[in-house]
């Protein structure tokens, strides 16, 4: 793979082990590496690479070292031109698989048996982490230490700041540890249920399986539910006239602040914000995806839309009763089609899936959205400290340094602040930051191939299949030459057929360009984009399975969706007419 022009030296953004190298060439070339565009659709800023290292430390630990999943160890990654390619480490020796199976039985069995209590403890742990993160203080550097250092027992500032930085990194480690604790087992139960369904009902649409398992009271849907409630409240209390299309959140707040009714509504909004505005504006693995608190454009646009819909007499409620009834109806009708023997397994696995699947849906809000958006802000506080002392031009620049470089910069800052000497940082770091920002912009224009390396005969890794929907079949489809053909195939994720104009969205910042009635084409959608789903007619993604969050939201909004097409964003252009068949899993380019 060639380096795109002007991107020479991109390697400096990443750790030495993240690159393909001569020493590992022989083994790496025999492996299959696919672009993880689901989690990393954009070139990685140096700091954000923590979401690769730590996440794969955690995934590998649970899958390989804790549960000893028999056929698979963990996920390796390599970086090409800023984009992240991943590859599973299989366990190939049968004796080894058998040995691991014994540990797996005992360990995973314990988790399944004690799921409810372990999961309750998990929630408490996550909430504790978030509270600890909120409480973490980045102290300012004053001319003299405060009196408390002398007369109380307060730490000196250099100790406190370095300790806070180590702790913020540690909190990320812990969050990722928690993130993967249940995930593989949760998906495992779901996929086993799906496999049983497919063995006996070979043509069952994937979305019907998902519908039978899906939770009803999922925190991912709460933020939008709260917005709908606030929209009704605005109409009931007569403050809805403040919500005019095109007004900024600040302008709406100002209009509401003018009278008592408006202020009462704003007070109600404040109550909702914690925790529901910790929803992210994009999938949380990049620092620039903030929360609704950081950028209220999405929730305010959504409020305006809900109010307009209500006034037009539309029903904006999520049809919970209907979803619940349909979930039971599908389960009983499919169950009735099976013979007694299969029926027993079906009922058992459906029960287990419904027990464990809420975790799969819930962890996203707590880990990826709430924790991560708060965490990036805490890193910004460290960036602010560095910027204040001239090490960076802007606090946002902190994300252009790796987490170890930030540690090094803080080290020097505190050293020279303590000594009163002249720091080198202010001349050393800004040019590095400037160069990297430019590199990232250029790298973003490169279109990464879906996969590199040797195509394997079969994919056996549960994590790859479960998390990325990377199956043997999909891999072989990717391996085919991208033809000029007019049809893309992917996983049918939400039923229905529509034709319309495509809007290709490659970064979250382009979300604002989406117009009413367009078909969203993106690498991966995020449930945090929920409000734009009321605008679009269908969604197409490059990657993701039927359990991906894009698929979940599309089913919620009754929009056709095809996910995991491999190359929709590179084959389709904005403005092109396309037909999306969410039942067949095909996208037809009509012009």
């Amino acid at each position, binding site marked *: 793979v060639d380096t795109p022009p002007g991107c020479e030296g991109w390697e400096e953004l990443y750790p030495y082990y993240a690159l393909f190298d001569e020493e590992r060439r022989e083994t790496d070339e025999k492996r299959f590496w696919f672009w993880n565009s689901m989690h990393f659709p954009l070139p990685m800023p140096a700091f954000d690479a923590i979401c690769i290292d730590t996440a794969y430390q955690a995934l590998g630990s649970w899958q390989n070292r804790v549960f000893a999943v028999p056929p698979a160890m963990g996920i390796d990654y390599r970086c090409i031109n800023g984009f992240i390619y991943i590859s599973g480490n299989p366990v190939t020796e049968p004796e080894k698989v058998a040995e691991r*199976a014994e540990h*797996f039985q005992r360990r995973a*069995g314990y988790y399944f048996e004690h799921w409810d209590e372990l999961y309750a403890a998990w929630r408490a742990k996550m909430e504790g982490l978030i509270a600890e993160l909120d409480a973490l203080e980045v102290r300012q550097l004053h001319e003299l230490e405060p009196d408390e250092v002398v007369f109380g027992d307060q730490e000196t500032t250099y100790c406190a700041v370095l300790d806070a930085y180590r702790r913020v990194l540690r909190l990320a480690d812990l969050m990722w540890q928690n993130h993967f604790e249940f995930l593989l087992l949760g998906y495992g139960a779901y996929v086993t249920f799906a496999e049983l369904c497919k063995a006996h*009902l*070979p043509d069952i649409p994937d979305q019907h399986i998902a519908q039978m398992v899906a939770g009803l009271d999922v925190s991912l849907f709460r933020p939008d539910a709260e917005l709908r409630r606030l929209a009704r409240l605005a109409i009931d209390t007569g403050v809805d006239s403040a919500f005019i299309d095109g007004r900024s959140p600040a302008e709406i707040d100002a209009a509401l602040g003018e009278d008592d009714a408006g202020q009462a509504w704003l007070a109600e909004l404040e109550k909702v914000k914690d925790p529901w505005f910790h929803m992210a504006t994009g999938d949380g693995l990049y620092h620039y995806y903030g929360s609704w608190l950081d950028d209220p454009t999405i929730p305010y646009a959504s409020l305006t839309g809900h109010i307009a819909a209500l006034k037009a007499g539309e029903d904006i409620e999520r049809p919970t009763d209907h979803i619940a009834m349909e979930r039971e109806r599908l389960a009983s*009708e499919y169950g009735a089609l099976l013979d007694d023997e299969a029926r027993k*397994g079906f009922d*058992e696995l459906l029960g287990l899936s419904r027990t464990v699947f809420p975790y799969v849906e819930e962890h996203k809000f707590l880990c990826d959205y709430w924790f991560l958006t708060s965490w990036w802000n805490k890193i910004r506080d460290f960036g602010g400290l560095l910027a204040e002392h001239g090490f960076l031009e802007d606090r946002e620049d902190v994300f252009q340094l790796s987490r170890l470089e930030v540690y090094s910069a803080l080290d020097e800052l505190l050293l020279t602040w303590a000594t009163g000497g002249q720091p080198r940082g202010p001349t050393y770091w800004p040019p590095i930051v400037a160069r990297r920002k430019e590199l990232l912009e250029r790298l973003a224009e490169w279109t990464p191939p879906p996969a590199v390396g040797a195509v394997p005969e079969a994919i056996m890794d*549960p994590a790859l299949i479960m998390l990325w929907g990377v199956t043997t079949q999909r891999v072989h489809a990717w391996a085919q030459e991208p033809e000029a053909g007019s049809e893309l195939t992917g996983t049918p994720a939400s039923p229905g057929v529509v034709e319309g104009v495509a809007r290709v969205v490659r970064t979250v910042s382009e979300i604002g360009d989406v117009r009413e009635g367009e078909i969203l084409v993106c690498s991966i959608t995020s449930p945090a984009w929920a409000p734009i789903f009321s605008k679009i007619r269908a969604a197409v993604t490059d990657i993701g399975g039927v359990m991906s969050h894009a698929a979940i939201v599309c089913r919620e909004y009754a929009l056709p969706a095809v996910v995991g097409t491999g190359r929709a964003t590179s084959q389709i252009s904005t403005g092109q007419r396309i037909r999306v068949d969410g039942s*067949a899993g095909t996208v037809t380019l009509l012009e």
Partner: protein
Amino acid sequence: VSEAGHTRPLAALRRGDSQSFGGKSSALGELIAAEIPVAPGFALSTGAFRAFVEEAGLDGKIAVELSRVSPGDVDSVVGASHAISEALRSAPVPESVRDLIARAYAELSEEAGLPDPPVAVRSSALGEDAEDSTFAGQLESYLWVRGAERVGDAVRDCWVSLFGPPAIAYRAHLGQDEPAMGVAVQLMVDAVVSGVLFTCNPVSGDPSMIAVNASWGLGLAVVGGEVTPDDFLVSKVTGEVVRERVHAKDVEYVPDAGGNGTVRVDVPEERRAISCLDRPALQALVEVGRRVERAFGSHQDVEWAIARGRRLPDSLFVLQSRPVTGLPKRRSTPENATAMGLVMSWFGAGDAEV
């Protein structure tokens, strides 16, 4: 069976009548009892066939000819077929049987409110359409037959088809002897579209799907494999169309302008490449498929037609139904499997003790 019992309205037949009226007629009776739309008609018993053979004094000849057949010897099959068919064709249909047919046909005419209504005359052999031996396509049907005289002739032609070379060879292969046959006579459905549906996916065995093949005109084109039909897979559970493949349908069978029989014509250009079933028609087929399956308690292979000049659901008729044979075996679930045991085996820990 007494002479007067040789005909019976289809509506009066049930599964238990298959020995005396053949598989197809008794299945049609069962469908009518389940209130599934079937064109009205009457059935002729196997006794009528025996009366015909006896009166012509041909039972000895048939037995002798058939005894010379050896299953693997094509010449012996063709020779016997030729000899028996010739003899049957030159024998008269007994007057008493002709009278019975004429009376039943007159009643049908009254029911249809038409003089000489067009009917379909179809074989209803013993053993035909049974789960373990499918005679599919080996016995004749005669469509668009009008007038009592012609109906009587068509009945004899059906009987003769019992001794066509493929039918003889097939029976010899199965070791069956003493062939006999009933006949079903039904008002013709003037089909705009017709085809076949399976109450499961016959390829994958999925019981939650209805598979539909359909083409323009009478069902001959689909059943005879003369067109590649439009192909649909529809979920029984939600009614969603999960697969739709529309093919170019070049020919169709329509009634002959002369009023008797059918002709094969080219499908007009503008109808060839378009789907011959819309969503409401597919929904009606799913509904009927589910009811047929329930009526028989097993997966069924159903011929159907949508009649000209009527509206759904009244335009949809079931022409025949028989059990699906040769479904793929599905992977079995281990006995007494617990959810956890199944999850473990998915993770590749299946061999260890749970």
